């Protein structure tokens, strides 16, 4: 009973983190190394979910996911994607709200790398993609780690968006923060305490890990 929502949240967190790693890495490269001035507009857009109230996001997604709007119907028909009240829906929603956390981490990790790294790799005959995957990525491992932890923890705690687009279906969209909310509302404080404690421990472990990674990095650069 108590494990269902927990496992669902962990699964959600892992999928969202993995997806964001893949999607955000090229974006971070673009925003970090790109020279085009208009990039700032897009970078701001990608960072927007960090400050936007989750309810704003939830409201728009609820409309965008609806199978009764032209866009939602197209998604449903053309690629068979059912986003309203489904696990895939909260994956997409969490990816949008988690994007800035991964992006900021990867960007700052990439920014502190020595530009000569790229030059050396190109001089030695590596292509652009090879350079990013085999040279840049391994050199910013700490940033990748802390970005992933941050994104994972944030997804675990995502509440507002999931509340608005999820529909609290057991095994599909009833994540641990939703389950906790419902337990509190129905006065079941014992289970609520169990969920809350697990979340505190996981979140603390995550923040601790990030801090340890940063300390280690400081010692290495010092």
């Amino acid at each position: 009973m108590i494990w269902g929502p927990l496992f669902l949240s962990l699964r959600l967190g892992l999928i969202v983190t993995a997806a964001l790693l893949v999607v955000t890495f090229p974006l971070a490269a673009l925003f970090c190394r790109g020279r085009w001035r208009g990039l700032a507009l897009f970078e701001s857009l990608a960072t927007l979910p960090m400050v936007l109230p989750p309810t704003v996001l939830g409201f728009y997604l609820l409309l965008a996911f609806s199978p009764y709007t032209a866009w939602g119907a197209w998604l449903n028909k053309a690629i068979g994607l059912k986003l309203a009240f489904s696990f895939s829906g909260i994956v997409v929603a969490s990816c949008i709200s988690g994007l800035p956390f991964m992006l900021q981490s990867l960007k700052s990790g990439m920014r502190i790398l020595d530009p000569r790294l790229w030059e050396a790799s190109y001089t030695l005959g590596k292509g652009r993609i090879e350079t990013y995957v085999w040279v840049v990525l391994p050199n910013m491992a700490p940033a990748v780690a802390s970005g992933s932890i941050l994104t994972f923890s944030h997804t675990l705690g995502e509440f507002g968006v999931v509340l608005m687009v999820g529909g609290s279906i057991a095994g599909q969209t009833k994540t641990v923060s939703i389950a906790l909310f419902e337990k509190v509302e129905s006065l079941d404080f014992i289970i609520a305490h169990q969920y809350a404690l697990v979340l505190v421990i996981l979140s603390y472990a995550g923040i601790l890990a990030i801090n340890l990674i940063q300390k280690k990095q400081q010692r290495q650069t010092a």
Partner: protein
Amino acid sequence: MRKNPRLLWIALFLSVVSLLDAQQAIKVAAAANLSYLADQLKAAFTQKNPSVQVEFVFGASGALTTQISQGAPYDVFMSADTDFPQKLSDSGRSVAPPKIYAIGTLALFSIHKLDFTKGLAVLRDGAVTTIAIANPATAPYGKASMEAIDKAGLQDIRSKIVFSQTISQAVEFALTSATVAFINQSALYTKDLAPYATEGVYWIRVDPTLYSPINQAFVVLKAAPSPMGAQAFADFLLSADAQKLFKQYGYLTP
């Protein structure tokens, strides 16, 4: 000002007087199904009691009960059932036992022109992909909806159900992403749902024999910050004026 300091004193005096004469403001914690007629209730009440301001706070009845038992500063609690206020009364948080002010009615609502001639069995249709229902653990209308589904022998449609936190979120789901929703009939009398007011086309009344009566009761809370205003509001809820309003919004009256 310097020429006439008396003006200053008069201004000061007036502002003190206005403070003393400050209107009482009561906070009413109300089940979400009441949000549709709250403005009307407020208007009718303040007409009779101009010195008492009313402020509504909406939520699922169970959620409000949790807040109240944790010391939320409400004066009156209007539940969507009798059990939640009874709980508060049992734990000594209310002035008197719960009193029923209205009996809620359940409607099945969709903006997609389903074949409602089938009654609840329309939920089996392929066109119906999602059915929004308020969380049965905290929302009495949700509990009644689940009861109706079970009594109608429609257990097989359970996989289509999505849950909302309040009955008004079920209405919202029906307007956006869900095919159909079990809602409070009172929502259908509001301006926002006026385009869908036609019974039989956009909604049907759920057969009341399929669910236990939604006896909505209120309590005046012992911790009420404004006990006088709270009592006046409690009396108003049972008055002919308020009862007429409830009837207008599709409620049955006790």
